[in-house]
């Protein structure tokens, strides 16, 4: 019997929403306790700041350019490498429960396997997972949670916020108390909400396993990704009127707009409603209209969703502790990407490689039986490193196609093994608007270059000191005193950036 692996992901969760990372709004005692027992990473970055590319990196252990899922709507090929397959081949029982999103959701022709299991009453196998039980942000669509809700609680189906509008665009409709986009009063009972459903189904699957089996369970919560529509019964936990504005939000409009104007010009163009570069934010919503109260309410609802996740994780931990497994279970907690969360007056996500989207919560509590001491790692690590970490936990070598390394257990380990840079990339092509971004984070700097496209001419970029400017308000791309540093960072980026997969896979759906 070896070590078992509980891999917990959330969707679009900011680093600063956890108490262990300095968050003060959501109470997250369960995850904070996991962090205290394990290794907490202060500078973990994704290789993409949107769902499908990022999740494809997690499962393959590859850069976006290598696996080729360059934007939402590009399906990960069914025969793509999968760390779940590696573990299953080694004898692990494997499951993913919750949001997968390796294949597009919008699928009227039912072409993608991920969308076909629930209607057939089956649960995989798929991508190395013997059990594949799926959910997303609401009650629409072909996934298991939606079918379960429709079958068991049809009256609740209409309670969720309509994520897409009648034009199939991300909905800009305001709700809640302030009219904030994607805020909503969802009167669904808590026990029917997808967060608790994901935990319930995870517990059920774990309960089905013999005590001696090794297992890899990816528990994938759809929250706190918008819509911000947690069960109404829970909203009173946090009164949005008492919520402080995020540190990244600049209250004075003139000051905020001056900061935006010092960044590449697509920031201000989106803020003013002159540019929609990607599908992941409401096309009809203009960030400049965001009010301080709307941001307070969104922040509060987001925090409620984080608390529900924390409590759901606690139930799962209690369940496997009751099986006597805790000493041999590794727990890894992270998210696929962040959320702008009001930084610079922006919400949602897009081609903006700043901490709101790139700095991730990442915690690894090695199995207590492994004897790894608690630590905090400040060196840069990446989603790329998760798949090799799972292999290492299982006593397996990293597969040759994996491009990362097992996570370091402390900074000395990181230094010894040369964890010094992470790369993040963005490519989008949406109805004639093309944006192409490459970023390196290294030596306490974040350096981003915008490649020529329909929006940028190839001369713009961003350069921030993480130590001196943690909110990334001062873009030093054009600072003459940093020209050599900028050149060095870009040279290092291009030395390590894999070439894009060829031929380039096509976008086959919006999301």
């Amino acid at each position, binding site marked *: 019997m070896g070590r078992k692996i509980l891999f917990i992901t959330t969707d679009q969760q900011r680093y600063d929403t956890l108490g262990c990372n300095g968050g003060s709004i959501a109470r997250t005692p369960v995850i904070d306790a996991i962090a205290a027992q394990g290794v907490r990473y202060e500078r973990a970055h994704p290789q993409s700041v949107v769902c499908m590319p990022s999740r494809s990196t997690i499962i393959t252990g590859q850069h976006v350019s290598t696996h080729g899922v360059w934007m939402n*709507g590009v399906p990960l090929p069914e025969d793509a490498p999968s760390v779940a397959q590696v573990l299953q081949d080694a004898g692990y029982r494997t499951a993913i429960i919750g949001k997968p999103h390796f294949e*597009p959701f*919008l*699928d*009227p*022709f*039912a*072409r993608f396997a991920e969308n076909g299991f629930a*209607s057939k009453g089956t649960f995989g196998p798929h991508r190395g997972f013997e059990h594949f039980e799926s959910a997303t942000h609401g009650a629409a669509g*072909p996934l298991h949670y939606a079918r379960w809700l429709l079958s068991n609680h049809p009256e609740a189906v209409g309670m969720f916020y309509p994520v897409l509008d*009648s*034009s*199939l*665009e991300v909905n800009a409709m305001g709700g809640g108390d302030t009219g904030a986009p994607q805020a909503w009063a969802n009167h669904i009972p808590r026990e029917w909400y997808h967060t608790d459903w994901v935990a319930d189904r995870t517990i059920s699957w774990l309960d089905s396993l013999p005590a001696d089996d090794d297992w890899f369970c990816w528990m994938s919560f759809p929250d706190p990704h918008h819509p911000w529509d947690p069960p109404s019964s829970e909203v009173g936990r946090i009164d949005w009127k008492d919520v402080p504005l995020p540190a990244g939000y600049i209250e004075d409009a003139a000051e905020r707009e001056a900061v935006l104007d010092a960044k590449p010009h697509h920031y201000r163009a989106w803020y003013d409603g002159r540019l929609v570069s990607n*599908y992941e934010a409401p096309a009809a919503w203009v960030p400049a209209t965001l009010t301080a109260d709307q941001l307070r309410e969104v922040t509060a609802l987001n925090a409620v969703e984080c608390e529900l996740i924390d409590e759901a994780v606690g139930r799962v931990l209690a369940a496997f502790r009751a099986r006597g497994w805790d000493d041999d279970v590794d727990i890894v907690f992270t998210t696929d990407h962040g959320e702008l969360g009001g930084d610079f007056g922006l919400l949602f996500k897009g081609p903006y490689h700043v901490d709101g989207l790139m700095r991730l919560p990442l915690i690894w509590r090695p199995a207590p039986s492994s004897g790894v001491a608690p630590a905090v790692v400040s060196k840069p690590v990446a989603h790329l490193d998760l798949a090799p970490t799972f292999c290492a936990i299982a006593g397996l070598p990293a597969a040759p196609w994996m491009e990362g390394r097992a996570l370091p257990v402390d900074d000395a380990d990181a230094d010894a093994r040369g964890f010094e840079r992470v790369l993040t990339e963005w490519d989008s092509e949406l*109805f004639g608007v093309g944006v192409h971004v490459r970023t390196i984070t290294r030596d306490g700097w974040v350096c981003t270059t915008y490649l020529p496209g329909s929006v940028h001419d190839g001369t713009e970029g961003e350069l921030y000191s993480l130590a001196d400017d943690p909110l990334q308000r001062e873009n030093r791309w054009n600072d003459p005193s940093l020209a050599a540093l900028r050149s060095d960072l870009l040279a290092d980026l291009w030395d390590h950036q894999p070439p894009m997969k060829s031929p380039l896979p*096509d*976008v*086959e*759906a*919006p999301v």
Partner: protein
Amino acid sequence: MYGTMRYEIRIQRPAADVWALAGDASKLHHWFPGIKDCTVDGNQRTIVTNSGIPMPEEILVCDNTQRRFQYQLKVPMFRHHRGTIDVIDLHDDTCLVVYSTEADPRAMALVIGGGTHEALHELKRQMEAATTQEGTH
């Protein structure tokens, strides 16, 4: 503004052979993955997707000379739709097939376009497999 998508594929078969299948309105479900049935009544066609959704269409153009087929989905959520299949003779016993979609709401161009892309690959597979079989015989 409309959303538009366009995919193309080169097929190692003469244009006339490819058009015989691609231009036959009643045979779309033979080569479009995700469409399980297709019935034609005059210029009205109804397709049924794998997920069981029936979608009525109006056939706008079926030009055997230009080898162009155009149709319009008549589904309420579309404010506009136009699908166009062109089979272009490359005069070397091969052809280029172009499948274009324009739609309002624009997001539907991506949703439908993804299906057309896979359909072109299936059309090529079937047509070139037929070539192989003929060669074998």
